[in-house]
């Protein structure tokens, strides 16, 4: 029998626990917890399933053709078709996003968080931005189609592109991610405590000096993480590009200058996936290989963002 005081106490606790539970096992609680675990495992299982399918079907093509697949242009023969043009197009689109949305988005966030007082302008802009972030991506495609392709077509893509040029796609993408950049940057700015600003104001800094030398450096990791993630979002986005006329099919043009490239036709990695997905089954392995490239890029970018967040995150 129980001899030490500790053992006696434990035995006592056991008796009380039995009395409360009525001596029965609580099957319903176990079933509920099992259900929750099951649902979570199902969710994670779908992800694992998807990644496995992509890897198993896509890896052989990449292993066989290697660099050739990554650099070849679009073609009607699956064994020759590659994602070279698609990768180039996607990189161009990312350049548009980085050059246009990042400065504009961060600037807007700085104004909303640091400059604007609690005025109607700030409230209105805040709610406009929040709602813009919830607008389906395809609606941005319609915006791009109406404004850039049709209205400004002669300017952004004269000649054979008839408006459906890289500029139109890039501007559409930049507009699409702008609200996300604003929201994530504003959150990062808000996380910088007011005392930092007050210290700078206290020694006579102007508002811009406070922002430049104190607020932005402290908010930078958060802003970078947010902008990287929004870039990843743009990298995988397809629907608006389909509407503003990323090439479906193939195109076979050599552009001589940067301007010609910008005003010419283009395609992107996700639109190539979409295009090939609707082709005959002989393209099946190519689709998986292109998806593998797409997901690999996204995983690397996401991992980078998470690493940056963990590395530089600051708790106040």
């Amino acid at each position, binding site marked *: 029998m129980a001899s030490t005081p500790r053992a006696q106490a434990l035995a006592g606790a056991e008796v009380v626990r039995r009395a409360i539970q009525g001596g029965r096992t609580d099957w319903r609680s176990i079933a509920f917890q099992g259900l929750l675990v099951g649902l979570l495992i199902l969710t994670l299982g779908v992800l694992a399933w998807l990644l496995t399918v992509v890897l198993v079907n896509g890896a052989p093509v990449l292993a066989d053709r290697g660099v050739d697949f990554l650099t070849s242009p679009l073609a009607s023969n699956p064994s020759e078709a590659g994602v070279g043009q698609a990768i180039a197009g996607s990189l161009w689109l990312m350049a548009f996003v980085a050059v246009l949305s990042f400065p504009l988005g961060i600037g807007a966030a700085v104004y909303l968080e640091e400059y*604007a007082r609690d005025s109607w302008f700030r409230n209105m802009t805040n709610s406009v931005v929040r709602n813009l972030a919830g607008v*389906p991506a395809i609606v941005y495609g319609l915006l791009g189609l*109406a404004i850039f392709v049709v209205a400004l077509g002669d300017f952004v893509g004269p000649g054979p592109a008839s408006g459906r040029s890289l500029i139109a796609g890039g501007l559409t993408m930049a507009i699409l991610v702008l609200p996300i950049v604003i929201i994530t940057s504003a959150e990062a700015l808000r996380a910088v405590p007011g005392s930092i600003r007050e210290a700078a104001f206290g020694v006579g800094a102007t508002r811009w000096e406070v922002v430049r030398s104190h607020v932005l450096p402290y908010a930078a990791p958060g802003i970078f993480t947010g902008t990287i993630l929004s870039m990843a979002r743009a990298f*995988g*986005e397809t629907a608006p590009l389909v509407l503003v006329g990323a090439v479906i099919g193939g195109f076979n043009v050599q552009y001589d200058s940067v301007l010609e490239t910008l005003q010419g036709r283009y395609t992107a990695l996700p639109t190539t996936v979409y295009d090939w997905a609707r082709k005959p089954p002989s393209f099946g392995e190519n689709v998986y290989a292109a998806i593998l490239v797409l997901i690999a890029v996204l995983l690397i970018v996401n991992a980078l963002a998470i690493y940056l967040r963990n590395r530089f995150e600051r708790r106040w």
Partner: protein
Amino acid sequence: MTAIAGQPPRLTVADLRGSIGRRRRELLVRVLFLTASSISILISLLIIVSLIGEALAFITQVELGLLFERGWFPRRELFGLPTILAGTLLVAVIGMLVATPLGLGAAIYLSEYASPRVRRTVKPILEVLAGIPSVVLGYFALQIISPTVVDTICPGATEASNLAAAGIGVGILITPLVASVAEDAMYAVPRSLREASYALGARRRTTSLSVVLPAAVSGVVAALILGLSRGIGETMVVSIAAGATGGSLFTVNPCQPGQTMTAAMTALATGSDQVRGATLAFPSLFFVGLLLFVFTLVLNLAADRFVRRVRIRY
């Protein structure tokens, strides 16, 4: 009063303002930032203008009776809205049937049951799932879900692509969104409420379902509304897996191929050379887009309103 010798000269406001150059730079920076933040308003105006212009052109030219016919064949000038509305609703509902149990289950488990270590591991994995592009899920739905899951639900489904496959794909896509918004809401419920419940002898299950879930109800409902809104606006999964190219007959059978609003738009656009030629097909694109914009806007505003109206402040 006479001046006391040795007293420093009196400062005026002008002395405190600093140099003119500094003030001018300050103003310039301020105007730049103001311009940047005005651009988002400009964008929303552009969206509304570009949608409404063409949508009006469509609605004034089309025979209104045709809008309520069954069947969506824009190339033949048959614009039956019930067809694409039914398809959209069907896909969104199937998506929610998948995403609600998966998302809420994951949220309750992560917020109430999981150890910190499990939480730290699983949340980034869910973020990865959230980051999978929709084209990828569309192809997965068409190639993998349709022959396995859908064939079990709909024996004798003849078409590889159908609304059920698209709906399940959309459900997988919005599960991480539902899970993360709902989990945030439940995790934000203060510990004291849980402790009070445990002190009364409640089990963990009772505490989760009867204390934490009701306390977080505004966030949970918002998560579901946002998921629905995302499901209605989801494009690529449906374009790839729902099976309608160009036109579609009216159907409410999920085992059949069908057309949604979003897929109707990409279908119109991928025949882009014809879209410009055909008289009504091009403006119809914007009319459908305007409807979609209004639907999702209403849902998003509802989610926002719900969070504010029902939120309990602790």
